[in-house]
């Protein structure tokens, strides 16, 4: 690995990153205090959780929660000023970018499951959604079995594409699965008839349909690929002090009733950029969870 060191030296020369004195203290909190900055990962098109508004600025339900967490971190560290950096992520890049320290919090629509918990941590759940698919009414699709041999799209790096892949094997569908970079791109594949169906969390599908040119053309399946699964803000694994601050901040937000207010702002009122109203009142399961916040990855804990 000799020339590896050489690469390294060149990098060091280009970007003299000084991290002196970082030996004793570890963790995200320490890093935030040292740099005076926290980096939030955001999504392009996870409406209404994290997406770009008309000024290409990330907004959404999860972004609002993250800004509340940032306030709590700022208070915890007694900082006068805390710079918030924003870094775009996709479903495929979010976990490696979390692991390698590029982002500190991922504010989006990330499903919290046991498998991912081996790689990353999640704070208290902020939404529950099941994996379904959207299709054009004109395509005559009635059930998952009708996807047999068809082209089906899903977003790369999601639990949905994994569930689809597994169902494809288990049910012998022989569907041709195309991975898309992000939800908007995947939806366009259905809109332009490149794929017959797009498998994704139902809430994201509903908002994509609502925001499309002709919402009446589409239908979302009744049958699901999964039980309603929890969404969580993602943070780095094995960072107990940081997780404690984040958990406390989100728990305080959800139990105080403010969480429901923010929920209402994004799900039952007009949202940018097109003034759409998703008309999705809070479910009783999520209401219960907000009363007793949990970061459990198990769907059965939310009944």
């Amino acid at each position, binding site marked *: 690995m000799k020339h590896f060191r050489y690469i390294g030296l060149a990098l060091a020369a280009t970007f003299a990153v000084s991290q002196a004195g970082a030996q004793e203290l570890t963790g995200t909190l320490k890093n935030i205090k040292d740099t005076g900055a926290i980096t939030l990962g955001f999504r392009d098109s996870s409406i209404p959780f994290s997406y770009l508004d008309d000024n290409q600025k990330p907004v959404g339900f999860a972004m609002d929660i993250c800004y509340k967490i940032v306030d709590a971190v700022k208070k915890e560290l007694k900082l006068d000023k805390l710079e918030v950096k924003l870094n775009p992520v996709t479903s495929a890049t979010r976990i490696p970018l979390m692991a390698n320290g590029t982002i500190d919090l991922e504010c989006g629509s990330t499903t919290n499951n046991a498998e991912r918990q081996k790689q990353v941590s999640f704070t208290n759940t902020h939404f529950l959604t099941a994996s379904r698919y959207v299709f054009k009414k004109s395509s005559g699709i009635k059930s998952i079995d009708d996807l047999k041999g068809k082209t089906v799209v899903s977003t790369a790096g999601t639990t949905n*594409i*994994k569930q689809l892949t597994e169902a494809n094997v288990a049910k012998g569908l022989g569907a041709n699965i195309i*991975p898309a970079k992000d939800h908007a791109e995947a939806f366009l594949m259905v809109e332009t008839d490149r794929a017959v169906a797009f498998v994704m969390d139902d809430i994201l599908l509903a908002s994509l349909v609502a925001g499309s040119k002709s919402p009446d053309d589409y239908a979302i399946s009744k049958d699901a690929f999964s039980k309603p699964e929890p969404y969580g803000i993602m943070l780095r694994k094995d960072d107990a002090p940081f997780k404690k601050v984040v958990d406390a901040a989100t728990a305080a937000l959800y139990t105080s009733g403010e969480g429901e207010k923010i929920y209402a702002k994004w799900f039952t009122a007009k949202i940018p950029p097109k003034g759409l109203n998703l008309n999705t009142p809070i479910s009783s399961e999520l209401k219960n969870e907000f009363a007793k916040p949990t970061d459990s990855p198990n769907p059965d804990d939310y009944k």
Partner: protein
Amino acid sequence: MNYHWNWGIFFEPNPMGTGTYLDMLLSGLVLTIKTALLAWVIALIFGSIVGVMRTLPSRGAYWFGFCWVEFFRNMPLLVQLFLWFFVLPELLPKAAGLWLKQLPNAPFWTAAIGVGLFMSARVAVQLQAGISSLPRGQKMAATALGLTTVQGYRYVLLPMAFRIILPPLTSEFLNTIKNTAVAITIGLIELTGQARSMQEFSFQVFEAFTAATILYLLVNAVVVTAMRFLERYVAIPGYITGK
């Protein structure tokens, strides 16, 4: 480095039900090679035609060749693939566009044709340079022997030119293989795409990318070695490459 290494991951079953993760990468490699070969055939055919046109005395042929090369050279490959994949079907009549979009393996055909046309511009430039590098006397001698223009190219100029430009063509072929990776953006799951899927399913980023890197290096080594033999086999006596 607080990264959890697991090199055994390659022998664990993948979620596609197609065997292990290693099988998944190898199927990606096969697709990379298939796409690259088809693209290369397209590049050679169109590149040769256009390259020859650029050396013909006809002004029309020259300008056609010029425009072809400039068109395919001055746009990023990614943008060209987007044009073929997303834009072209929308500009066609509805039925034709729909047929194109619902073609099985649409990403494969789009990638092969897109990369092939992109590379054809480069092949054309190389061939033009090869033909121009031949002494003028060759063309004149061909004419003097009573050969038509087509015969002159077929029997005299092209056999020489192609052998001279074999080394640059080798590197253009290697570029073709590498360029197929751009097609992951239109949903072609070739080697880089499979490495990325493996990373998403198994979370073992660096193992997946290392394996893909090694496979690319191997393909490269095989092509370079094979081309070296070919170069020696077709070498022109008297030229530097012919020693």
